[in-house]
């Protein structure tokens, strides 16, 4: 049986008066199980930091409730919540050395000096900052400050670790290295962590679950694979995944035993009835206007496809990104071989029914993924 470490219930955050101020977090509910790593993903200003600050206790909750380890905490001061946090702005204490900064997080836990020293050395080695432990925060680089701040959070035995963009300043090589170590560190100790990141690879690699936020609302909260395969709405579909999902408006109609999806520019995609679940088919035909989405790596070239005109073809060393004019817009394909395509060349693209995501254009909600209803 899994234990719930964190529970948010209909949490709202207004900066300023309720109802009139900036509505930074809107009715967010979620549960984080003990031992899980949750990645909080979303565009800048969508309310990620605000959510973490409410959990930590630095911002008042405007509406709703927060529970940590079964205790209602949203009215308690930060000291009593037993959470650790790595701040977006690092926030090291200038008069102390990096070592002292990391160690002071343990002061109140009454750990003995040799144990504190050993633990500082351990996290410092993990994060590759052993050589700067005796320097002062003002004399080290941004990336080093960031890791020192991360170390200060990780060293604690808290119920919950909140990590606000803990590796944003690091170069990809180091980030990849630390990502593996960080995951090992967290899992080995059975810590529970929420990690804000702008890096989807990081979210996929580290997280058991991803929470996608946009404009203060929680869009989807599911495993990385689920989010990839079954995006709950247009936003998650296009936000998660690199390069982003191709989406086109389409008009659905039923001719004989075939479903026609008419795209802009006179393109007509024809599918057998069996390509869609009966309820989805009915809903599509009732609505007529839908949005279809297909991931770049699921677009195939081949005979019998719809025509597209190549706009650009980039070889990235391990994959080709091909952009082509298609249905009044642009479609992007990813291929794993080097494609010999020239600008202006005509290609045929096939959108297989199994790879098609259908969305309701009004609400943005997903209607189907492949042959299954959403």
């Amino acid at each position, binding site marked *: 049986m899994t234990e719930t470490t964190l529970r948010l219930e209909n949490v709202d955050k207004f900066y300023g008066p309720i109802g009139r101020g900036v509505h930074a977090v809107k009715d967010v509910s979620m549960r984080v199980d003990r031992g899980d790593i949750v990645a909080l993903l979303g565009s800048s200003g969508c309310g990620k930091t605000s959510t973490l600050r409410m959990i*930590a*206790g*630095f911002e008042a909750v405007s509406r709703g409730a927060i529970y940590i380890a079964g205790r209602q905490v949203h009215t308690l*001061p*930060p*000291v009593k*919540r037993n*959470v*650790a*946090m790595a*701040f*977006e*702005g*690092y*926030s*090291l*204490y*200038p*008069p102390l050395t990096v070592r002292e900064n990391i160690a*002071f*997080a*343990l*002061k*109140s*836990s009454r750990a003995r000096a040799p144990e504190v020293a050993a633990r500082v050395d351990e996290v410092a080695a993990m994060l590759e900052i052993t050589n700067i432990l005796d320097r002062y*925060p*003002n004399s080290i680089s941004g990336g080093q*400050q960031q890791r020192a*701040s991360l170390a*200060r959070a990780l060293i*604690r035995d808290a119920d919950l670790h909140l990590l606000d963009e803990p590796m944003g300043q690091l170069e990809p090589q180091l980030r990849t290295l630390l990502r593996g170590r960080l995951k090992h560190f967290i899992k080995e100790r059975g810590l529970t962590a929420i990690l804000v990141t702008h890096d989807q690879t990081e979210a996929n690699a580290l997280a058991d679950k991803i929470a996608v936020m946009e404009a203060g609302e929680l869009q989807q909260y599911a495993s990385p694979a689920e989010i990839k395969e079954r995006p709950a709405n247009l936003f998650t579909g296009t936000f998660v995944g690199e390069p982003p999902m191709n989406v086109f408006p389409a008009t659905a109609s039923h001719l004989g035993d075939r479903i026609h999806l008419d795209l802009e520019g006179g393109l007509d995609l024809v599918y057998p009835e069996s390509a869609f679940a009966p309820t989805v088919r009915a809903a599509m035909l009732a609505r007529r206007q839908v949005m279809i989405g297909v991931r770049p790596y699921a677009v195939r070239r081949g005979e019998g496809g719809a025509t597209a005109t190549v706009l650009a073809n980039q070889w990235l060393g391990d994959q080709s990104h091909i952009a082509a004019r298609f249905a009044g817009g642009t479609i992007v394909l990813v291929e794993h071989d080097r494609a010999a395509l020239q600008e202006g060349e005509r290609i045929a693209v096939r959108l297989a029914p199994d790879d098609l995501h259908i969305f309701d254009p009004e609400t943005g909600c997903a209607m189907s993924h492949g042959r299954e209803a959403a």
Partner: protein
Amino acid sequence: MDTMSPLERVLRGIAITLVILFFMFPIFWIFLMSFQTNETILRVPPSIVFEPTIANYQALLTGRLETAAGTLEIRFMRNLFNSLFLSTASVALALVLGIPAAYAFARLKFRGSEEIAFTLLSFRFAPPLLVLLPLVIYFQQIGLANTYIGLIWVYQLICLPLILWIVRGYFEDIPADIEHAYRIAGHRWFTTFRKVALPLAGPGIAAAGLLAFIFAWNNFIFALVLASADKQPVTVGALAFVTASGIQFGQIAAAIVLSIAPVFALALYAQRYLVEGLSLGAVKG
């Protein structure tokens, strides 16, 4: 610095010398005056060559002023003590009241906080004379006229806004998350204020305290109206040198030297904090 050409260096030296001469000359002249008698001071044309005498200082320290009209009691040492006591006590009180207030204004944004902070600052704009008359009447009614407590209270008009506004700026410059990091590691709000916010704002607090001290020390009008002879600071006490038999320039000069000495010493001692403190950015990461 290293990019300066020799010519620039010379010009710079000359400019600095001129500025120093311009600002320091009056003080230097007063210093010389304090070792002269009225006769040598007033001779025409003036000259730097004279026979130094310490009679002026003697008169101040003993409290006996020999004039052509006879011996006069002066209470300069008492005045000096009053200045020291009033300024120190006022600044201390202003720090005790002002620092927590500054912290509150910096960290808690509540309705009307800006207005309240501005109102406190606006006390500095009011011409003191305007406030003084009603104040004298009130103070006489409630028995605060001519008391140290009453004076220290009025001195808050000078010290408190200064400290509040300068120190508030310092607290605002400390990223709130530094305090948050400390709090989340298991420390209470007050411990965090004491252990993190206060030390980081230290240079600013020192600078503000020093400025407030100088302003309080230099105050004239409040003390002139609200205090009688035994409570008066040096600024008002110096009036005693304007005697029936003429103005005692030598003693005035000596009194000025003695009365700026403490502030001067304090400023020199705290120079490092002052520069660091008034040039902000002391805690930027």
